[in-house]
């Protein structure tokens, strides 16, 4: 059971971050399964184009890597990914070390929804820095190429043995499960309007 976070496009998310001068601003971008690293890279490029300042992107394997990296990069934009493989313990460690993570710049976490859920539950002190600053990346033509989009749709069709038309019909009848892959399917088809039907 969960709720949809407000959707954003990558450029809008970068703009939101830019309008927060800090110090120590923290924002989260929620992406589809397997997309964190690529979205983080694109976000870094977007920030660079918009701001032209220092932008760092880093995939972090453990809490200790986050602390180490932050201590060496107090200024500028920091785009972090790699949280999706973390278990609860890593988040608890990060929460205990929150004081060491104060930055003058803005920090952006790119992660999947289950990882955000772990952060909310296991790292309440860190989570309080975000407030409600978490958005879901709207997938589609703004982020995926046509070829990439078709590859993903094909994988979904194969996985669930359903056609695009069947998915839309079920969504219109309110019979489509609320699981993230089906939501992603609708968005890729340009039918995000059917979400929550």
């Amino acid at each position: 059971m969960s709720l949809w976070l407000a959707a954003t496009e990558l450029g809008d998310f970068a703009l939101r971050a830019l309008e927060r001068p800090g110090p120590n601003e923290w924002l989260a971008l929620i992406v589809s399964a397997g997309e964190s690293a690529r979205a983080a890279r694109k976000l870094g490029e977007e920030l660079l184009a918009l701001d032209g300042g220092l932008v760092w992107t880093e995939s972090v394997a453990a809490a200790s890597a986050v602390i180490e990296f932050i201590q060496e990069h107090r200024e500028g934009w920091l785009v972090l990914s790699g949280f999706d493989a973390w278990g609860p313990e890593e988040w608890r460690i990060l929460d205990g070390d929150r004081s060491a993570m104060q930055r003058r710049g803005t920090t952006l976490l790119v992660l999947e929804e289950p990882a955000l859920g772990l952060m909310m539950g296991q790292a309440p002190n860190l989570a309080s820095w975000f407030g409600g600053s978490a958005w879901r990346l709207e997938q589609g033509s703004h982020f995926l190429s046509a070829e990439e989009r078709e590859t993903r749709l094909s994988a979904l069709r194969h996985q669930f043995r359903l056609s695009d038309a069947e998915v839309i019909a079920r969504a219109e009848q309110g019979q489509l499960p609320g699981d993230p892959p089906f939501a992603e399917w609708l968005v890729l088809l340009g039918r995000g309007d059917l979400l929550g039907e």
Partner: protein
Amino acid sequence: MMAQARCILCYDGALRGHLRHEGPMTRREKFRAYMARVAAAADPALAIEQQLYVHPPGAISDLIVARFEIDPGARHLVVGGVGSGKTTQLVTAKNRLNALGDLHAEYLDVSEKQDLRKVRPGCLIALAGGLLRGLLGAEAPKGFAWEPFMKWVDGSWGLELLGGMLVGRGLGGLVPGVVSSPQHDWDDIPNEHVMTVSKAHAQFSRRGRTLAVLFDALDRMTDHEAFARVVEQDIAALRKAGIGVVLVGPIRSLAGFGRLDADRFDYLHFQTPIDAAQDAEGRQFLMEVLEKRAGEGMLSEDAASRLIFFSGGVLRDLISLAKAAGDEAYLRGADSIGVEHVHTAADAYGRALMIGLKQEEIATLRHLQSTGGFVRTSEGDLALIATRRILEYRGSTIRYAVHPVIGELLGQLQPTGRT
């Protein structure tokens, strides 16, 4: 191993010009100044320095200072939820204690000095000793050596003898005498080091000042047994040394067997959210916080009222929501923050706060929302408070409520889907 990092250096992108010309600079500057003043995650000491601090009614810093005025060696435990303003109160208390003249207060974020996963008895007395060493400088009493103490604090090369393991080996066991001398309460801390700190503090006190240490961040310890051992032994050892203590502890210090932790202290202070619905003075305080941070003409009274409602009286949430509402107003082209921007911010905050909730937790929240009933019995119940999904108010009675940003969404949530 750390993954490869990329640093992309100054590039004057094509979009940069668009950003610079998207609207009148005065509007952008006004909003950016506002956003800087509502930086909810900024160091609390910075807010005090920037004169953004508003003194709350019944502030725990008032109580701590008043108690120390008549009992400088007292032991205080501070308990409160995330974002309730505990650190701000500690920093305020430190500044005021230092102005008294006969106290020297030091604020210490334990997590900056000590890995919270490795906290063990002796940590706090070691940190206090380190502070005294710095304060005394070359002033240590004759025949007094810091070296053994510092080796104990920082570690040294050599064999570690575990207390009693080698004593009596091959010689038979010790037959206790009829008279047993009283034992101190710090079994795991070598007594010689407690005595070192005690002597150093006695020397420091000759200047006419008593040391008080305000230990922050121990509320983030997740190993409750380790916390209990530290409280049991270090607080007693600091008392022996005559050092005043303020310690921020976890919420579970007050639950079940954790109550024993609170019993080790002379005074217990709760830093809970402000119950704006039932506390007019508290509500006025929250309004003043917003007025001080928002600046002229940025926030209507209605918008401020809604921010106070949605914050649940949690200070950091109030400021975070004010920031998010400012974000919405700016991106939608408004000149000031209206009620509609507050509602959008609260909706986003609630959705983020609900991520990761389990079915049984949703059921607990719904039950509390519909009946007002909540009995804190399990670890899961404590977790709902620790993560601010449930707020605990302490007035003349204890009251629990679902965080208002979640309350608005619970009714919309379908059991099998999303809203």
